[in-house]
């Protein structure tokens, strides 16, 4: 699982480093099949016995500004408490996902969060007593390789 986290971190970094404009262009080019045309939206509201239109279901409309605020506050609160999450792996995943969301708005902070996730991941790999594992970036020694082969 630790390796999966490591790979996820690398994948997120790779995706984030790709020009977001290119991704947007790609999204524009490929028509979305899931998007329903406006005409497919709920039709005319039901009518009461006296012929008056019933009120629409109570889903209050939220302005874009409010949505922006909710987005920011949700992201901030999740990222500020990510270090408390147990098991640690969940915390790291939360940091990676949070950094991916933050990337477009605040790259410096996203980098900070990713760096923190990276150091926690390294710590985790050390903590698991994996003295058998090589350190990050180091190649396997022949002895380690032979030991892994023998199981």
């Amino acid at each position: 699982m630790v390796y999966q986290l490591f790979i996820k971190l690398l994948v997120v970094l790779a995706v984030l480093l790709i020009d977001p404009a290119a991704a947007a262009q790609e999204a524009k080019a490929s028509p979305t099949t899931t998007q329903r045309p406006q005409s497919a939206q709920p039709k005319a509201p039901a009518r009461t016995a006296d012929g008056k239109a019933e009120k629409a279901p109570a889903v209050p409309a939220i302005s874009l500004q409010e949505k922006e605020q909710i987005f920011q506050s949700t992201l901030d609160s999740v990222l500020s408490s990510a270090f408390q999450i147990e098991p640690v792996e969940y915390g790291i995943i939360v940091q990676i996902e949070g950094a991916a969301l933050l990337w477009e708005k605040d790259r410096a902070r996203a980098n900070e969060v990713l760096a923190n996730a990276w150091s926690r991941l390294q710590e985790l790999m050390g903590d698991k007593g994996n003295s058998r594992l090589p350190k990050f970036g180091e190649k396997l020694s022949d002895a380690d390789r032979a030991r892994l082969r023998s199981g």
Partner: protein
Amino acid sequence: MSLIVDGVAKAMLSAKQDKQMVANFYDDALANLDREKPSAYVAKGIIAIARSRVSEEQGGFAAANLAVSTLNKLDITESFSSKSGLAPGIGAWINQSNLVLLAEDYFELTETLAPLFRDLSKRDLQQTQSLASALTHQGLRSLAQLGLAKGLQEELQKAKNSAGKSKPPATEK
């Protein structure tokens, strides 16, 4: 089992079967899952069905509600890495392309929960917010909230793009 149910339901839909019949089929599957002893597998199954039902008026939220209550009954304190049946270091070197063999990874809770909340947030933000905050495990709650934030980000981006498109070109004097 949820994979099979989902596959059959989608086949029913593509065969132009009555939508109500498909909804009943999903309801039966959820009722069966609800009777099971709560486990990560059961939760993943419910989440899979909930994702397929997001487009329904209330079916998606009802299934998501059940998923949250199942997740709240789980004890998620054990570290992931201690669960691996493989010797340390081996996992990364083994590549399994078969999704049936990889079912656990494929349906890893962390991978499926956020997309569910992303989809739900586009239907009803407030209900999704309260559903996310009902999760008692902090990690899962955070992932659900991030999924919700992702949904909001996508909507904001969409609004931004459409505003950019509808802007009339500047007239030359």
